[in-house]
């Protein structure tokens, strides 16, 4: 059973304040209504992925904007949106216990105006915007919004701090990404499965590929293999599903369900020895497949020593995940917990409820427990 993150205390992050989540389990189902903070909790956990790297927090801030990468919110604005609006200081902070170590993470600072050389600004802009700005520019130096502060990172009392600065024209491209991850952590968004490249990790391990193929055969019994082939015309790699009757079919011709299963399976292999964060697990999977797919998910996560955090709106998905355990017969062992959050804006605090899967299962049986509320 993987339990890399034992507990977490999100001090300030987006709309969350003072959220303590204790007794984390191997599989942690984060249930709740829209806007209850489920995705924010996953994002906050990602701060632990590479806590001494400022690029990490910038990448996290951009995750919600990835679908509109070229026309969406500026990086600076995405970053500023990580800070709670309902307190008078700019601070993102969390504490956690991971693999027996106490971790403290904090980014704090202030917004101010800085003067920038227009040349420096122009270098950071896309051509269309650059031309527009060159037309409008009429001064030698321009005033720009900026955040100035520091990142503090502490492991078992050993503190490291670094100054951080980002201006309104900053981009994430070209920034160094430190490779020394504190913990291997993979985030799977509700739409990642439609982007392609969802089985590169699976095919590196023949035994695992066989297991994944058996899950895919739930959808189509004549799927026989997964292959990545190079297109001779443009020399790009493309993912194909080998079908007994149809031959090699590009993955793009298959439905979202198959892509989702592959992307889940791939993410488990990517997260080996670490943590997998799955946002809205139910997306693209018909509820009739929940039992089989979730059984595979739980089994594979144990095999790869992956602690899993799963957000969901779906009570059927929660029931499906609980059904992976045999609570009527198994001993007190329980790999699942169900987490729910409740914000109290008057107290500036978010409360957590962490219930063991067995308890939720019994409540569901006894009174149809609406565990998402």
């Amino acid at each position, binding site marked *: 059973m993987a339990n890399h993150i034992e507990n977490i205390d999100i001090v300030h992050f987006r709309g969350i304040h003072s959220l303590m989540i204790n007794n984390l389990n191997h599989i942690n189902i984060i249930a709740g209504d829209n806007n209850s903070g489920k995705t924010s909790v996953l994002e906050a956990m990602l701060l632990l992925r590479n806590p001494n790297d400022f690029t990490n927090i910038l990448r996290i801030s951009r995750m919600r904007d990835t679908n509109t990468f070229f026309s969406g919110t500026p990086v600076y604005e995405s970053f500023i949106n990580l800070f709670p609006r309902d307190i008078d200081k700019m601070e993102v902070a969390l504490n956690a216990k991971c693999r027996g170590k106490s971790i403290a993470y904090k980014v704090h600072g202030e917004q101010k105006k800085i003067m920038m050389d227009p040349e420096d600004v122009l270098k950071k802009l896309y051509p269309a915007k650059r031309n527009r700005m060159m037309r409008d520019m009429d001064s030698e130096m321009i005033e720009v919004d900026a955040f100035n502060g520091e990142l503090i990172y502490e492991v078992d009392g050993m503190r490291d701090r670094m100054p951080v600065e980002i201006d309104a024209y900053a981009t994430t491209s070209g920034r160094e990404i430190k490779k020394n991850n504190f913990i291997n952590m993979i985030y799977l968004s509700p739409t990642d499965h439609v982007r392609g490249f969802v089985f590169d990790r699976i095919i590196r391990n023949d035994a695992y590929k066989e297991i994944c193929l058996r899950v895919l055969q739930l959808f189509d019994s004549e799927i026989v293999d997964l292959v990545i082939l190079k297109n001779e015309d443009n020399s790009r790699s493309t993912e194909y599903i080998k079908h007994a009757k149809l031959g090699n079919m590009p993955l793009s011709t298959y439905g979202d369900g198959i892509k989702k299963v592959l992307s889940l399976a791939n993410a488990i292999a990517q997260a080996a020895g670490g943590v997998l964060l799955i946002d809205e697990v139910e997306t693209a999977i018909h509820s009739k497949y929940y039992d089989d797919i979730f059984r595979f998910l739980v089994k594979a996560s144990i095999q790869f020593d992956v602690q899993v955090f799963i957000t969901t709106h779906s009570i059927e998905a929660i029931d499906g995940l609980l059904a992976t355990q045999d609570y009527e017969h198994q001993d007190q062992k329980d790999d699942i917990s169900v987490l*729910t959050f*409740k914000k109290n804006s008057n107290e500036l605090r978010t*409360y*957590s*409820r962490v*219930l063991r899967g067995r*308890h939720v299962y*019994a*409540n569901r049986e*006894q*009174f*149809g*427990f*609406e*565990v998402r*509320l």
Partner: protein
Amino acid sequence: MNKLILCEGKTDAILLSYYLEKTCGWTHRNAPKGLDIRADETRGESAYWYRRESESLLICGVGGKDNFGSFFREKIQSAIIDTNAFSKVAIVTDHDDHAEKSIIDSVQASLGPIITQIENGKWMPNSYENSYKQESFVDFLLVIIPSDKEGALETLLLEAISENGEDEAIVKRSISYVDEIRPLAAKYLSKNRLKLKACLGVTWAIQYPEKLFSFIDDQIRSVRWEESQVLAQCFEQLKNI
């Protein structure tokens, strides 16, 4: 908000549902989503929901006076701690031949740690820690029947029937009859509780012979309990649920 009444058995539950419908307008409804408390009828339990405007009331028969604790622990406690399911809880129990303090102690043992503040016939504020580790509140009422003397629900019903002069005579004669026959029927009427039931049974058999083979539901619903002063006094606080 949701309210809860726990009573000993199905008869009590039927009487309470009838009485609260007639006097306070609680009408039957299906269980609200996510709070479908399931009773085991083979164990004499019952669970029925009622509505009044936006409020809901659950009346449960727990399958006997010794089952308040187990019913509460198995079927109610998690709903309260995990979902703050009920804002008001009442227990209606027979006085029998117990002292009031011993009844309160027993209820406290059954409902703790959620309910700790208990007085007979008085709504008491109680607080508990829910599964979000927040302090939550629930008002609690204990109704002992009869309130101030030994007896049971049947005592109350016989007193209510006796409010009518003609029926009072029937009640008196029924009690005399059961007293008279008791030595011959010792194996059926060994306890006072059973004797009381027999007194009510004889009275009803005389008042409503055509209902003799009807279900208890029919029998109870054939009396206009809502007009009784005795019941009005006994359930005065319960009507505030």
